């Protein structure tokens, strides 16, 4: 599953307004719903919050990947947000999260969801990629960075 093929430019937010974890999740779900015309915002947010309660998706290295499976979507949807100030996200390493990928998938298939999460985690392990995403200026540059990283690391 190539992220660059799934993410729309309108699902990329280069500067999030959120300052707390709850605000960040709300802002990212809004981004998902507005970009992909998803109607069940409350259901999606509930699924994301339920998953966060099981184990924070603040995985460290400045990355958080809130995600959930829910019956109200019919395929995988993904969005990206960046916070230059960072947000406390209960991350594994205690550091603030600056880069956020949010994913929702239907409940009846697991493969694409697993592949998408695995792909994101594989990219973000590379410091060069993380630094480039933190420094990049616009949505177009972000997509180009992801494409290049996918060619190199996936």
């Amino acid at each position, binding site marked *: 599953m190539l992220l660059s093929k799934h993410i729309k430019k309108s699902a990329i937010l280069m500067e999030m307004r959120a300052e707390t974890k709850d605000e960040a999740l709300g802002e990212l779900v809004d981004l998902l719903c507005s970009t992909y015309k998803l109607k069940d915002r409350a259901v999606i947010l509930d699924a994301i919050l339920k*998953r966060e309660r099981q184990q924070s*998706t603040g*995985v460290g290295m400045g990355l958080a990947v809130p995600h959930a*499976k829910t019956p109200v979507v019919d395929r995988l949807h993904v969005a990206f947000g960046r916070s230059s100030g960072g947000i406390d996200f209960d991350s594994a390493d205690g550091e603030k999260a600056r880069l956020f990928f949010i994913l929702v998938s239907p409940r009846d298939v697991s493969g694409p969801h*697993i592949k998408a999460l695995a792909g994101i*985690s594989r990219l973000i392990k590379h410091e060069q990629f993380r630094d480039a995403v933190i420094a990049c200026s616009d949505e177009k540059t972000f997509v180009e960075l992801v494409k290049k990283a*996918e060619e190199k690391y996936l």
Partner: protein
Amino acid sequence: MKIKEYMKRDFRTVSPGTPMREVALLFFESGESVLPVTESDGALVGLILIDDFILIFLPHYIDLIRNLDFIHDFGALERTSFSIEEQLFVAGDLMQENISVLDEEDSVMKAAAVLHKLDMPRIPIVRGKKLVGMMSKNDVCKAIYDMEGHR
């Protein structure tokens, strides 16, 4: 000959929030390739297949390659730490929710047919929504052998 006479009643389960590392350890320790996921009341909510677990570690291009004979290793991927993945996945993320189950009152031959059709090594057995057993192809073979009078 009913499933409940031959199903395994001593099986391991995980909850939807069980961390990936614990799921991995259960796979290793049990030697099973299918793990049931249950809620605290024993209700079955999904199954984790070891094939889905392995998906985490495979490069995305693997589906595009028909012949793996010319690949001897996967380079840097083989030396990668999986600490991020361990933080990112819990059992609920890995499980399949659209699963087939059988009732403990169903016949063993039905279990044989369903396991064959689905090409699954074992299948959850339920009473209502509650998981009460697991039935494997080996359990089916034992039941058929018994039926033939080889007790």
